[in-house]
């Protein structure tokens, strides 16, 4: 197809504007590339050539692009839509250049070189163009992607490269227009037509127009009417049913259906199964033993202590209790945890549980890093936040200066945000453990950030299902400070604090706590395993809740485990000089919040609506000798703990929400704040009405009149007096 040398042309965008939306962005990029390109048409050729080459492979050759007809028959071009090929806009852009007076002498030559392609039409074509019908050709060319190789052959400049095109684009003798002969159904989806250079015969041009219209692809799919009709007719001709006209509609329907539901070859893979294949591939990696060079040494190393807990044993016990995941899934979790331990510097690791979500679930692992390992990430995060605060401080100061310059001082809002409660240090309180989550065993583990007290406070007020994507926003009122990862972490913290229990005596306080007096009300926050623990009989565990204790710190209403006075000034605040302001406002007394100390028994937990917050069961009533004591939380449905002998474990499998007998009611928005204090200087006075004014005037006159009368009387009196 001949591409006339693309020249930067202001009119080029016009045809492109007529394109329908089907033009891909790629094409628009190309379009954009070409006009700003070198004004010299020659240099643009390589680009075109490339594009052409690529499309060449796609295009099939057709015959009979006939000459352009006169303008009359060109009006339908307005209706022509895009083709799937890329040249559409190229054509449009290039044709205007023809107007710029391409030397007509060039024209005949390439055609002859192109070989096998009708020439004369082009000559007249160009003449017509030079008669100022460039626009027409823009549209024409936009319609047909294919004329490229032929037209391109026209120009000697492109000859060398385009010879290839024209050679390969041998549109042989244009045979009957029977599409069945040219297309096979499998190719239909990918190609558009290649047409030869049009010759200036009106009838043939009309044919091309019609074909171009039929090639318009439907809005809903990639199928064009032409292709569909081709399909249908092929099918009919192949099958040759009796009385095809009467079953035309159903044939039509089946042809369309088959287009979108291709019959699968027995030799081809079923693409639908790719999801499960991918999953299996990923999980295969789990099952491979890490490291090459297997030998006895490796076995010995592995047999020694590893941080990975014995998940299978835990799963077995929980299964006795009627809780837990299937053994298949448990094993996969075990292998996934093993992978996590290998990847991260972990000292202890535990399977915390599974939180279900709408589109996906989370497997949560609770780990503790080795000493000093996690400091790196923490520092980075802190630097970022500090940097942010510094810039904010600067911003505030500048703002204040500006305000002073303004003559009318805008009243400063009296509302100050509540002081931010600092989050707890790592390895203490709510952030004692680190949590890693993943959606499925085999997927990479993601580390959850530490939880801040603000997040816990907000998490208590909202109730949202988890979606399964860590970056999903949590849209709620009051607005949750963070995304789903933070909400997840906050819920994990709450659940752990509320439901992690152990048999009485398993943990005990260390005896080296010398500064117990100083901490005083805060209580102890460390414990250690009791080496002398002998286990409590299962029956006793089931009978009395006093045999179980919490071994996690309770979270105070503030959102932390250890109380912090929010009004204490930090160093940064003093630097900013806000101390004076705060002193002026007066220090509010805040009561210290106290929670139950560590290792309190379950019997002291608050009741929900007169029911105990915990339920205990024996796992199997038929064989009490071997059963396991199971404790189930009523406050957090899904939290279970089992104990037998010296073993115990906690797990949570559930949706991550607290139990509430009533439906959840989101908190109402706060009261509307007062904008300004009402006072007489602000209150609008209503203007007096006409009647009032008149009344006032009348009263004034009356007063004046009486005053005059009095004066007259006085005068009279004076006169009288004078007379007397």
């Amino acid at each position, binding site marked *: 197809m001949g591409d006339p040398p693309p020249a930067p042309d202001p009119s080029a965008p016009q045809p492109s504007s007529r394109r329908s939306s089907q033009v891909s962005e790629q094409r628009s990029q190309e379009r954009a590339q070409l006009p700003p390109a070198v004004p010299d048409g020659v240099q643009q050729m390589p680009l075109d050539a490339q594009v052409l080459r690529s499309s060449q492979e796609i295009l099939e050759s057709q015959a009979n692009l006939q000459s352009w007809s006169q303008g009359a028959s060109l009006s339908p071009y307005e209706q022509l839509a895009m083709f799937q090929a890329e040249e559409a806009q190229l054509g449009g852009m290039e044709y205007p250049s023809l107007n710029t007076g391409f030397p007509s002498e060039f024209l005949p030559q390439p055609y002859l070189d192109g070989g096998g392609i009708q020439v004369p039409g082009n000559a007249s074509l160009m003449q017509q163009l030079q008669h100022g019908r460039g626009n027409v050709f823009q549209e024409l060319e936009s319609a047909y992607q294919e004329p490229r190789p032929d037209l391109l052959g026209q120009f000697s400049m492109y000859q060398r490269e385009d010879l290839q095109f024209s050679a390969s684009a041998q549109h042989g003798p244009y045979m009957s227009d029977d599409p069945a002969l040219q297309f096979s159904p499998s190719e239909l989806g990918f190609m558009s037509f290649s047409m030869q250079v049009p010759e200036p015969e009106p009838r043939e041009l009309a044919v091309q127009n019609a074909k171009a219209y039929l090639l318009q692809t439907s809005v809903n799919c990639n199928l064009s009417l032409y292709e569909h009709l081709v399909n249908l007719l092929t099918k009919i001709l192949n099958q040759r049913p009796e009385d095809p006209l009467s079953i035309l509609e159903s044939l039509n329907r089946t042809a369309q259906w088959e287009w979108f539901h291709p019959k699968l070859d027995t030799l081809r893979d079923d693409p*639908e*199964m790719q*999801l*499960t294949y991918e*999953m*299996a591939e990923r*999980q295969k990696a789990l099952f491979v033993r890490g490291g090459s060079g297997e030998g006895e040494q490796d076995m010995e190393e592995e047999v020694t202590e590893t941080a990975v807990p014995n998940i299978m044993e835990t799963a077995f016990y929980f*299964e*006795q*209790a*009627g*809780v*837990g*995941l*299937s053994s*298949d*899934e448990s094993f*996969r979790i075990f292998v996934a945890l093993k992978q996590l331990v290998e990847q991260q510097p972990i000292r202890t690791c535990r399977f915390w549980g*599974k939180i*279900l979500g*709408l*589109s*996906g*679930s989370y497997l949560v692992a609770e780990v503790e890093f080795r000493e000093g390992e996690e400091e790196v990430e923490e520092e980075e995060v802190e630097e970022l936040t500090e940097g942010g605060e510094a810039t904010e401080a600067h911003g505030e100061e500048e703002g204040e200066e500006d305000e002073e310059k303004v003559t009318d001082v805008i009243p400063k809002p009296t509302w100050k945000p509540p002081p931010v409660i600092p989050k707890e240090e790592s390895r203490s309180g709510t952030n004692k453990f680190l949590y890693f989550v993943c959606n*499925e065993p085999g997927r990479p583990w993601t580390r959850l950030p530490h939880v801040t007290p603000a997040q816990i406070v907000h998490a208590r007020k909202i109730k949202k*299902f988890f979606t*399964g994507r860590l970056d999903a926003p949590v849209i709620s009122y009051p607005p949750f400070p963070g995304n789903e990862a933070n909400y997840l972490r906050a819920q994990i913290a709450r659940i752990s604090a509320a439901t992690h229990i152990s048999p009485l005596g398993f943990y005990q306080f260390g005896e080296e706590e010398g500064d117990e007096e100083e901490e005083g009300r805060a209580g102890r926050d460390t414990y250690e395993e009791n080496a002398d623990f002998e286990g409590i009989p299962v029956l006793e565990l089931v009978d009395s809740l006093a045999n179980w204790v919490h071994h996690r710190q309770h979270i105070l209403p503030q959102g932390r485990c250890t109380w912090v006075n929010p009004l204490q000034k930090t160093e940064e605040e003093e630097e900013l000089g806000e101390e004076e302001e705060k002193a002026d406002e007066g220090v509010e007394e805040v009561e210290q919040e106290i929670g139950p100390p560590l290792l309190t028994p379950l019997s002291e937990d608050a009741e929900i*609506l007169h*029911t*105990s917050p915990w*339920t205990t069961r024996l*796992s*199997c*009533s*038929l*064989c009490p000798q071997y059963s396991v004591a199971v404790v*189930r939380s*009523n406050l957090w449905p*899904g939290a279970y703990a089992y104990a037998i002998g010296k073993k115990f474990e906690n797990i949570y*499998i*559930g*949706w991550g929400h607290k139990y509430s*007998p*009533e439906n959840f009611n989101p908190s109402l928005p706060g009261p509307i704040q007062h904008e300004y204090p009402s006072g007489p200087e602000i209150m609008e006075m209503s203007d007096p009405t006409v009647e009032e004014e008149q009344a006032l005037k009348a009263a004034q006159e009356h007063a004046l009149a009486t005053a005059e009368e009095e004066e007259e009387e006085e005068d009279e009196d004076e006169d009288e007096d004078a007379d007397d």
Partner: protein
Amino acid sequence: MDAESLLLSLELASGSGQGLSPDRRASLLTSLMLVKRDYRYDRVLFWGRILGLVADYYIAQGLSEDQLAPRKTLYSLNCMEWSLLPPATDEMMVQTSVVKGRFTGDPSHEYEHTELQKVNDGEKVFEEEVVVQIKEETRLVSIIDQIDKAVSVIPRGALFKTPFGPVHVNRTFEGLSLSQAKKLSSYFHFREPVELKNKTLLEKADLDPSLDFLDSLEHDIPKAEIHRGSIQGNWQDPALPWPAAMT
């Protein structure tokens, strides 16, 4: 889940964390067989478990030939002895809507609810506090009924309707293909259809009367989500208003 395929179904549904201990499973299998024989049911389904404070209820349902006919519900505390529950009525629903809190686990337990009722005594109208006793059994029945109406789901094609009316299990149903399983429209509510008659004629024209005779899940609010269960790719559908119900 069908009594015959109980073990397999339990494995597949284990994603939500609820399962049965081996002793329960064994006793269920045995007792459900006996129930089927005694009550002459066509199919016995293990419906699930309702947790109570003191004990848990295990619920089973028996179906006759016609799958859509009202089912008989049985409950048991130990998976061995089953008792029949009365069928649910609307009055029960109203009565038990006032009760909140957990089940106790004792079927004879009675909830007390004080209501103010107007009593006409001659010409005087005064309010009296009446203590209404609601039995836990009643509450159980109505809760099961509510859950069933809201949540029991069946894939399209598993049941078919004969022209005479009764609904049968489709023995040629092989399951949904992967692309179909992802769509909500291939699942139906397993209860008397409510929205079917509200559909326009155009929509009805697309339906196949032998297969599409139940409400589809498509237009439910809140929208149900389907997510992939375990590695084999079974699809589970946690029903939101009752989060512990999975299909």
